[in-house]
C-alpha cells in the first residue's frame, strides 16, 4: 500500500528522502586541516586558545575607562563654574583666613 501524505510538502519530503544520504562523501579531515585550525586557534589574537584573550579584553576595557575619565576631567576643567572655583581658591583673603595650628605651634616653640 502506498503511503499517503496530507500536504504537498510532506509528499515532496518523502520523495526527497529516497535520495541516499551523502555519507558516501569523504568525511575524513583533509591533510593539514587540524594543524591549520590549531595554529589559527593558538596564534590568532582574537581567538587565542592558549591564553591572552581575557587579558586583552580587560586591557581594552580599562583603556576605554581611562579615556572616558580623561575626557570628563578636560570637560569639567573647561567649564565656567570650575574656573570660578579655581579663582576662589586663589583668593588671598581665603588664604589669610586659613588657620595652620602646626605652624603656629612651631612658631611658639622657636620663640
Amino acid at each position: 500500500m502506498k503511503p499517503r501524505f496530507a500536504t504537498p510538502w510532506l509528499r515532496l519530503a518523502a520523495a526527497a528522502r529516497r535520495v541516499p544520504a551523502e555519507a558516501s562523501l569523504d568525511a575524513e579531515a583533509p591533510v593539514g586541516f587540524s594543524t591549520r585550525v590549531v595554529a589559527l586557534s593558538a596564534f590568532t589574537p582574537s581567538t587565542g586558545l592558549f591564553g591572552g584573550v581575557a587579558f586583552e579584553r580587560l586591557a581594552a576595557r580599562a583603556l576605554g575607562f581611562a579615556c572616558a575619565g580623561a575626557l570628563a576631567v578636560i570637560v569639567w576643567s573647561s567649564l565656567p563654574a570650575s574656573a570660578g572655583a579655581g579663582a576662589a581658591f586663589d583668593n588671598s583673603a581665603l588664604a589669610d583666613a586659613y588657620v595652620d595650628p602646626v605652624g603656629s605651634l612651631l612658631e611658639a616653640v622657636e620663640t
Partner: protein
Amino acid sequence: MPPPPDAESPPDVEGWLARVRAGDQQAARLLVDHLYPQVIRIVRARLPRRGGEEDLAQDIFLKMFTRLDQYQGQVPLAHWVSRIAVTTCIDALRAQRRRPELRWADLSQSEADVLDAVLTRDDAADTGDALAAHELVHKLLDQLAPPDRLVLQLLDLEQKTLVEIRELTGWNTTLIKVRAFRARRKLQKLFQQLSRKERS
C-alpha cells in the same frame, strides 16, 4: 610527545580535552580529527552550496576552541560541538543573500514534473525522480528563514525526534513545534502561489 592513539581503542576524548586545556596542541589536533566527520556532515546537510564547507568547518572548530572554557561536560562533547556547528550554519545562511522569489519557470523539467505530481497526487511514490525532488526541496527551503529551514530539514527530511532536535539546537520542544508549524504554513502558501501561477 604522547603516543598516537591506537586505532582499535576508543578515543580518549576526556583525556584530549584535559590536555588541550593545558595547552597541548597535539591533543587539539587529535580532537579536531576526531570531530571532523561529524562536523562536516552537519555542514554538508545544512548548506545548499558546496563551496566553502571547509572554511565553515574551520570556523566551527575555532569557535569550539574559543569557547572551550564554557564547556562543563554536562552533555557529551560531540553534542556540544554539534550545537556550535548548527548555530554557525544558521549564521552562514543568514549572511547569504536572500534568494529571489521562486517561480515555476526557474524549475528544471524534472523538478516541474515532481512539483506537479506532489500538487496533484496524494502519495509520494509516484513523484518520479527522487533527485529532482531533492533539488526542489532545497529550492523551496531556500525561500525560508534559516531557523525555519533547519527545523523542517531535521524533522521532515532527516526524521529526527523532537528530543534529538532539542539537543542539537538548544531550542525547547514548544519552540520547535511552533517553528515547524509556521514553516510548513509558509511552504503551503508557496505551493499555492506556484500552483496559481502555473495555471494562470
